């Protein structure tokens, strides 16, 4: 790949392109916790479903929506890393991810979320593009709304 393309890669890493093109867990879940997320500024829309299992752990997570590659890839990656998490763990991971997206790093998260943050690392590049941070965090806001039993979230 030429140098010119290399530049484009710093934000749009292969993982993001891949999840953007082929989102995982792109489906509805019946009888699950559910919330919608919307970023009215850019029109991105996402719906998130969470199925809680034994010990209130997330057994299955899924989403549908439309938007930019960043928001779709972030939602897709999120559904993957959420499996097996308790409510508290999911919320704490959401905080960690928001820090990552806003600042490009999350020094304090290493201890707890090391492995998950590593998987989410490809999205750290959005920190360089402040207006895109909300694309990356949209699904996470919706996920938290679902956990709280709120029907919707907005990242205006």
């Amino acid at each position, binding site marked *: 790949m030429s140098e*010119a393309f290399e530049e*484009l890669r*710093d*934000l749009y890493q292969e993982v993001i*392109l891949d999840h953007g093109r082929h989102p995982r867990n792109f489906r509805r879940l019946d009888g699950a916790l559910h919330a919608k997320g919307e970023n009215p500024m*850019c029109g991105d829309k996402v719906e998130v479903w969470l199925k809680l299992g034994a010990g209130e752990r997330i057994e299955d997570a899924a989403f549908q929506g*439309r938007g930019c*590659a960043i928001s779709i890839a972030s939602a897709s990656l999120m559904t993957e890393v959420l499996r097996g998490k308790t409510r508290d763990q999911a919320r704490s991971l959401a905080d960690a991810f928001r820090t990552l997206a806003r600042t490009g790093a999350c020094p304090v998260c290493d201890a707890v979320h090391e492995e998950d943050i590593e998987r989410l690392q490809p999205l750290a590049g959005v920190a360089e*593009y402040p207006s*895109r941070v909300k694309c990356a965090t949209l699904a996470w806001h919706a996920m938290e709304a679902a956990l709280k039993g709120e029907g919707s979230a907005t990242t205006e």
Partner: protein
Amino acid sequence: MNDAPPVTAAFDVQAIRAQFPILTETVRGRPLVFLDSAASAQKPRAVIEAMVHAMERQYANVHRGLHWMSERTTEAYEACRDAAARFLNAGSRDEIVLTRNSTEGINLVAHSYGRGVMRAGQAVLISEMEHHSNIVPWQMLRDAHGVELRVARVTEAGELDMDSVAAHLADGKVGLVAITHMSNVLGSYTPAERIVRLAHEAGARVLLDGSQAAVHRKVDVQALDADFYVFTGHKLYGPTGIGVLYGKAELLDRMPPFLGGGDMISTVSFERSEWARVPHKFEAGTPPILEGIGLKAAIEWVERIGFPAMEAHERALTDHALARLSAIEGVTVIGRAQDRGGVISFTLDRAHAHDVATLLDRQGIAVRAGHHCAEPLMRRFGLDSTARASFAAYTTRTEIDALAEALTRVRTFFA
């Protein structure tokens, strides 16, 4: 105050660029290619210097001061009104109200003409291709004042549907037509003269939103016979914080004031106040003094170049851009109006407009992406968002080529 080289018949884009300090900046390690002038234009040195001159050498509050600095500043600020009157060919300087921006100008008309002169049961006619600033004030008027809101259609080609305009005017209930003179999304001009004629025949007044048009084309409000015309300084190479509302004297005279405060009154007692005469009646509080001084410089800068030269330059750029963009597989340009200016919205297959904008930005190219404050128009074309490239006097062919090449790269990337 202005040392811009005289630009005559020959349009020398490099000489023009040399007057814009920002154009030598780099972004993400690349020379800035600024294709977002429809959102706000960059500022030539003449504008910067006029504002600096005021702040460094000649400044005080205006209108009420008896001292030298105040008198000189008043003259400099009020000269903006003269410049705007000349720029729009208004019948009189008193027909020029200085506002904050187009949005405030439209709100002023919605308030003072809408609530002050229109009656419940009348209608306001807008179109599907309005900017939110020419939609929301009319919705608020509708909800507060019982006025109907009608919407003229836009054709598949992205032109105002004049049959739809005529149909809406037919029952004579429309009291005001508020329509853009040029779409900020599609670049389409609207046939302003015909709109005004039709509207007047149907007994309606017309407000034209010239936020985009006034930047690219000579506007003559008397020739158009427009009742109201607005534009905004920051798109015309001027500062933010200032805009212009032209209104026919007979209408402005009949309209109640908008905001209350200092400068818009003639006398005040607690029982009642008397309004100052037009246009001051509509200008409450300390005005945008520095901004007026900057806008005057911007108007003069544009006049020195002249619209014939600028339009020719922008037309050539637009043709070139349309050709280059259309040649890229997967790129769709939205709208193909006959009469259009240098604003081009497009989509790229399999890539979201936001990703396109970010990837262009990564290559130093500034375009806008989103709904461009025209959600209803997006919906009209079944879209969530588009990317938009827009051109100004300082835009070059090379920059458009850079856009086309970068876009080709983005396309390959997402393919």
